[in-house]
């Protein structure tokens, strides 16, 4: 299977996402100006500072030609994973509900965080079943998840809250400790922590991020079967 990793001016963790995806399948970079998704079966919108986070994080990237194709792809049920800045882009593009605001502590913060696996029954988390927690690094300045009360109630009820910061780990002030949410159909998933930086125990001690990418491959293989 082939992952496509989007590359905007200012993307930083695109290379890291590419490396991680290649542990699980094939992967290539998709340039922002190109509408062609080149047969990629799953899309990763990576972390970084696309367009310098100018105006609002992700606000400009969401209008790029490649995102037009990704939006169509998502509407047709394609798998889309948004990591950190990617999560921000997907919210701006309204492929995911809510918005990411500035951290409550007003600072960029980098920490290894413990995440509670709330929904292990999504195309992004089935391969994580059996665990109740994942240890994944988070590094961002605007990761405070916000949605209005009605939306939050709906997300909880529909199982769209996929990951939560474990007790004491929520440094950005996200409502209901939400770290990652998926779309109603479940094919689009965004999270602030970086699973691509938890695929090799040599680098920071945890490879818990790998199961997210493996889940995506299994979901595609299942769909083909």
């Amino acid at each position, binding site marked *: 299977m082939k992952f496509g990793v989007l590359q905007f*001016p*200012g*993307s*930083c*963790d695109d*290379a*890291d996402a590419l*490396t991680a995806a290649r542990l699980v399948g094939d992967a290539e970079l998709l340039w922002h100006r190109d509408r062609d998704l080149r047969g990629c079966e799953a899309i990763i919108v990576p972390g*970084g*500072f696309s*367009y*310098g*986070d*100018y105006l609002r994080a992700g606000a400009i990237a969401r209008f790029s030609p490649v995102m037009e194709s990704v939006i169509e792809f998502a509407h047709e049920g394609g798998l889309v994973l948004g990591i950190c800045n990617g999560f921000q882009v997907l919210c701006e593009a309204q492929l995911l509900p809510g918005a990411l605001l500035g951290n409550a502590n007003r*600072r*960029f*913060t*980098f*920490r290894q965080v413990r995440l509670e696996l709330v929904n292990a029954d999504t195309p992004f988390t089935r391969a994580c079943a059996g665990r109740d927690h994942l240890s994944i*690094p988070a*590094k961002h*300045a605007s990761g405070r998840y916000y949605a209005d009360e009605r939306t939050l109630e709906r997300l909880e009820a529909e199982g769209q809250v996929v990951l939560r910061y474990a007790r004491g780990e929520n440094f950005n002030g996200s409502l209901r400790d939400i770290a990652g949410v998926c779309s109603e159909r479940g094919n689009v998933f965004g999270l602030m922590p970086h699973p*691509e*930086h938890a695929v090799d125990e*040599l*680098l*920071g001690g945890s490879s818990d991020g790998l199961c997210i990418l493996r889940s995506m491959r299994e979901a595609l293989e299942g769909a083909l079967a």
Partner: protein
Amino acid sequence: MPDTAALVSEATPSVKDALALGLTAPEYELICELHGRAPNVLELAMYSLMWSEHCAYKHSRKLLRTLPTEGEHVVVGPGENAGAVDVGGGLACAFKVESHNHPSAVEPFQGAATGVGGILRDIFALGARPIAVLDSLRFGEPSSARTRYLLDGAVSGIAHYGNSIGVPTVGGEVYFEEPYEHNCLINVMALGLAPAERLVSSAAAGAGNALVLFGASTGRDGIGGASVLASAELGEEEGDGAGKRPTVQVGDPFEEKKLLECSLELLARELLLSLQDLGAAGLTSSTSEMASKGGVGIDLDISAVPLREADMEPFEIMVSESQERMLCVVAPENVEEVLECCEKWEVGGAVIGSVTGGSLIRVRRDGDLLGELPVRALVDECPLYDLEPAPPSAPLYAPARATLAGSCTPREALLALLASPNLCSRRPLFERYDAIVQGRTLRRPEAADAAVLRLPDGGALAASIDCNGRRVAADPYTGTVAAVLECAANLACAGAQPLGTTNNLNFGNPEKAHIAWQLTEAVRGLGDACRALYAPIVGGNVSLYNEGAGGPIYPTPVIGMVGRLPDARRAGRLGFARAGDRIALVGPFAPSLAASELSKLRGEPLPDRLPSIDLEAVIAAQAAVREGVRTGTLASAHDVAEGGLAVALAECCLAGAIGAEVELEGGEEELFGEGAGGFIVSGAADALDQLALRVRVRPLGTVGGEAFTVSTADGRTLLSAGLAELSGAHATLAALFA
């Protein structure tokens, strides 16, 4: 010398203008002689910058020539944008440290941010992808609101720039000392990786080749001092004038990220013949240095320079320090492709001149020749001055204010040291940095004595940046040797062999005999230590005149060192790992309270020298520890530094979140004395026995429990503190930045 004076409508400047620009009268006369006549406004502005201390190193160049710069691993030595060493697998690591002290005292966020931007450009100007940053900062005591403001601003600026551009900040150091109160130090080191044959020179070559400026547009940033040359109308309206020439340069990391990717792609496609970044003195220094290195001349057309503001004067365009700009030499047939690549990455690009066969820099606008300067006069013929060193006749520095009573228990002393600004945990600071982007970081801050980054061939790079300015003040020669050894010791604890060194010499006014003495002794120590370690200097920076009414800063030769370890899986760690592991003190450690942190907390004056160091024995101990770490049998290795043995042991407990019980003889000198050549290691008994075959190993005790306890042989408890207590003391900085 052709007479360009007639071509410029402004009056020819006089020696008075030269003095206002920072030149001396004899320097001005020499310029007139070399130039062939009195230079015009534009020409004088260019000379004043190229002949400034910052660009010409007038007071330090002769001294720097005494440093060792050659070695088997050196690929690029001093003189290029950065130095580089061979790190195996066909790769070279480019690295350098630079300072941005004076701008940061004015505006710490932008000063520090643009400092990062500048050093990163030096790295990719050499052709290497920047892979890591380390920062070395110094401020006054944190009791001062100004210090907290500067620290917060500087860390925010470094974080903003480094995080946004996607280069991890993997290590660093911060010191708080009164002599830095009015002259803070912001030094930034960067590392980059490139295939060795991809490294590019900055020498312009090939008459007829095009000069292309790419990156951000040019504005009035950083013109500052040269503004005395402003044409009459602007100069008269003081308020307007000042507003039009911001002395603070504002960095744009997003622009630099695009510039970086564009530059690396141009190099990968072999479209560039040479590359130079624009830093201090902007186009003036870049063009002169490229021409000088290549032994060629350069013709410039400043009407082709993309400007941010419409009505800029020629001298402004030539001295502007607008950030995020690069200059390259391109064969004419490749110019179109180069400009297309710039467009792809959404950076501006313009042909602004060409290389010539002569030896002149010629500046034209719309065809009119505005200035003509001999390259040699600009770059090579600036006078170099001899220093006139003499040791100070009286102490230069007042003792620190005492914060600890003269007599206290060892437990009180330990907790006070762990809580002191120089020793407490820097977590609240380094958590603001992305330390893992690019996926190479094997050891995050506080995990080991050095930062460790994975290499593609299974090996790893280690890097450290160190200097204890107070100890250098006590004894410039020995203190500097100690700083170099500190770097090498940190590398050894990670398992790495030093390959090369960079340095940033931060000193006061070298025209004063006692500062000249500090500088001379420090450089002597730097040279001796680097030679003994086979870790030559591959590049560096000098920042002088760091002093004010309150006196000079501590002499602070900041040392940066890079090393390699063959097996990434065996990078060392500093924290104790398992209950039951044995703990030992390794090496010729000869502790002394002279100039120690404990002595500082007590408000004691600096001694007039430090105990001498047995260089050979210390280096041998480093080698033994390095080999021990490489076998993979040692659970931890930690260099004993500020605070001495007790603090080092406490740090190992804190990092490993586990206690220890050790036995010592007692006495403050043994517990808190400082000096080179001491290492705390832990591991299974036979691992330590193996180590003892190579070096002096003194067993101290065992890892385990929830407390750190030191007892004497006859069972008397010297000190005991629980992990929670140690942790609480260690967390002081957090309270300062709530």
